[in-house]
């Protein structure tokens, strides 16, 4: 028996995982870089 699956549900789920995962990675790496560089500048007394 063949299941009637809506392909778009799976496509949207896969794109959501890929896009949200990538955006979260970019945001986290950028913000943690800015925070670390700010800590370094403070330690240098700038």
């Amino acid at each position: 028996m063949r299941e009637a699956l809506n392909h778009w549900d799976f496509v949207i789920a896969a794109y959501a995982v890929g896009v949200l995962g990538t955006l979260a990675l970019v945001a986290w790496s950028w913000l943690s870089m800015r925070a670390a560089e700010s800590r370094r500048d403070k330690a240098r007394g700038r």
Partner: protein
Amino acid sequence: MHGFANPARFLRIARWLTPALLVAGLALTAGSLAWGLFAAPAERLQGDTVRIVFIHVPSAWLGMGGWTAIAVASLVELVWRHPLAAIAARATAVPGAVFAAICLASGSIWGRPAWGTWWVWDGRLTSMLVLLFLYLGYIALAQASDREGASSRIVAIFGLVGAVNIPIIHFSVLWWNSLHQPPSLTTGGSAMAAEFLIPLAVATLGFSFIFGGVVLARMRAILADVQAEARLRRRALED
């Protein structure tokens, strides 16, 4: 090559290259995914689920490419003791783990309509899962090594030994029976139609730029932490 291992020179280049890679990568990726979703045709056998290829394949290549980069950086650290090699290896671990996880999740989602199951314990899927665990182990080991002030050689050796898994992932679909299809793109040519191949190439380029931008951002963060700690220690000794 030794010239680029100088942290000051690296920072001069990374300051403009990091946002440039991220912006170009996000633009290329957004364009290629829109192309894959709305302009690429449905495939004759797989229907619309073929569109998952534009997420799944670049993330698989970057998951594997990330560990290859860790192995090369670990070798450079062990042999030539470049000051930035250990930082580069550590900076690659998190983006590599994220893309390996995206590859596994998108593959599992694709597997349900294509194979009728979310997961099978075959060579390709299992070796990719092992890669994700290797990334998590590497991240934990690197953090423990940095926290304890231990030698980073053991982390570099782990990075080199873990590279054994990369050819296993690549050849798993040829060595063992698998639900996973054999590679569509080889050095001998492509089994993929141009209407899928071109957006896939653009998506791969876009995700690769994002990966490069994230690695540079991580390297800058790790380097800044090291420099801040060194400055605070020096100040504590002076007081």
